[in-house]
């Protein structure tokens, strides 16, 4: 049971990394990205291939996975630079699906639908199953913490301010003197690096990846995590990811206890509950559990300080 809980913890951490990445792209810059799982796959395959085929150290593989995620993010951002809203959603969704089809068919590189097995995990042999799980949980938790604080810095900075301005109105941001496309590309690069990092970690944790893992449903779970936690809030991204994983896993235990349901019906009921929860959430708490902060000052001002300095005009 502890091992199961630890595995859920790792899973939640990987979801949290992805939700943090999505928060930069969508929460801060307002760019729709329904291809999250594609960037996750890029990171997973990059690191898995480098460590299994070329025998590179895991650390290098993970760094390369994040880097490749960022690089592909830059490419997708440049290709979609002039698209917005629904169109951007369709193209990014198609991108992730295309990647999955490529991974299934380019057998020489990806081993096709058989997937890549035997991906090394850090100190897997030395630590034993429980020890390895625990070590990986600590590793993922440390990375989530590091990424969280880095993204908080970005959020409370002039850079974050420009991204939020683009989210509201990119023409205004351009007139304000900001090179909008460069910022959109950077937002994609940063967010997709986090997605790639999550993918690389996933591969090294489970030791096996295959195209069937990288389905659009995962993208939706990440989006759900951020929506539930609070779009535009890093804290919300992490909390939402933990909640979604807890929710998905707990229903796994609860549904079989319901009388008169077959296994197939139970699985379907789980999806119904997830969708229902999303609808209820969007109806009653649009801003998520942890709403976006009112403002993001680099240098906080005491409330009312500005008002006192100047003569009052009621």
């Amino acid at each position, binding site marked *: 049971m502890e091992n199961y809980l630890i595995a859920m913890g790792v899973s939640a951490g990987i979801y949290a990394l992805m939700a943090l990445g999505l928060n930069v792209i969508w929460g801060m810059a307002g760019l729709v990205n329904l291809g999250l799982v594609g960037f996750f796959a890029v990171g997973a395959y990059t690191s898995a291939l480098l460590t299994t085929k070329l025998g590179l150290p895991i650390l290098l593989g993970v760094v390369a996975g994040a880097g490749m995620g960022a690089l592909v993010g830059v490419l997708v951002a440049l290709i979609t630079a002039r698209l917005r809203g629904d169109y951007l959603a369709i193209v990014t969704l198609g991108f992730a699906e295309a990647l999955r089809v490529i991974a299934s068919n380019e057998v020489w590189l990806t081993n096709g639908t058989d997937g890549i097995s035997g991906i090394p995990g850090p100190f897997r042999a030395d630590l034993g199953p429980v020890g390895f799980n625990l070590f990986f949980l600590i590793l993922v938790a440390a990375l989530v913490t590091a990424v969280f604080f880095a993204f908080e810095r970005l959020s409370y*900075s*002039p850079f974050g301010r420009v991204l939020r301005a683009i989210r*509201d109105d990119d023409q205004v941001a351009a007139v304000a*003197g900001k090179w909008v496309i460069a910022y959109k590309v950077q937002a994609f690069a940063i967010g997709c690096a986090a997605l790639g990092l999550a993918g690389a970690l996933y591969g090294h944790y489970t030791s096996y990846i295959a195209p069937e893992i990288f389905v659009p449903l995962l993208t939706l779970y990440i989006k759900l995590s951020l929506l539930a936690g609070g779009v535009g809030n890093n804290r919300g991204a992490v909390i939402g990811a933990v909640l979604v994983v807890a929710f998905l896993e707990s229903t796994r235990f609860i549904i079989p206890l319901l009388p008169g349901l077959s296994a197939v019906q139970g699985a379907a009921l789980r999806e119904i509950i997830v969708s229902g929860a999303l609808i209820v959430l969007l109806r009653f708490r649009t801003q998520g559990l942890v709403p976006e902060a009112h403002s993001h000052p680099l240098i906080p001002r005491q409330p009312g300080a500005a008002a006192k300095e100047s003569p009052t005009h009621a």
Partner: protein
Amino acid sequence: MPLLEVRGVTRSFYGVHALNGVELSVEAGRITGLIGPNGAGKTTLFNCITGVVPPSTGRVVFDGEDITGWRPDRISTRGLVRTFQIARGCPRLTVRENLLLYGAHQPGEGVLTALLRTRAALAREEELQARAEAIAARLRLTQVLDNKASALSGGQKKLLEIGRALMTAPKLILLDEPCAGVNPSLTREIGERLREIVAEGISLLLIEHQMDTIARLCDHVIVMAEGRHLTEGTFAEVAANATVQEAYMGRPRWAS
């Protein structure tokens, strides 16, 4: 030499000729009014000058430099900034953040400097904060500095448009109907603020439909109609001009 020169600028949208070779110059140090009936191409001209929509043909020269086809951010950075007709702003940013956004030369807008929170970024932020607070005080926006821009009244949104333009330390501001939909007393107040801005050496080009505002504020008035420059002069001169009256009112039937 004029501060802004527009030479033969055309712009069509799928066969609709919004601008048919506009020729005009804006002199430094004064308020120039740009008037004309609806559909004359005034806002399209603003879009072409500021790079929001590139012109199809023609040249735009600002402060001795050909800025035709430049990206809008480069044009703003060069000292030519515009406001929007419908106060747009960034509704989910606070008034303070809206003002700070328009500040130039903030190294913290780079990813690495933002991550490292460098001394230069913090120092520049202090300068911009001081500037934003001064501008807000001047525009009577101090009380609402930390409110969301979406929570402002219509008149305050218009003032914020002007404030944001001022943050860039511009040479020329293009104002697209700064008094549209504003009550008469605030219209007068906006007028006074614009006069102060010009007194500090910033030039203004102003689109406005309220003729009394144009008459009171503008040193020089340019009239556009059907995508062209029609005439120019003092307000009294253009108001007395028969072609201007015709452009606004149509040709009297008994005279044709």
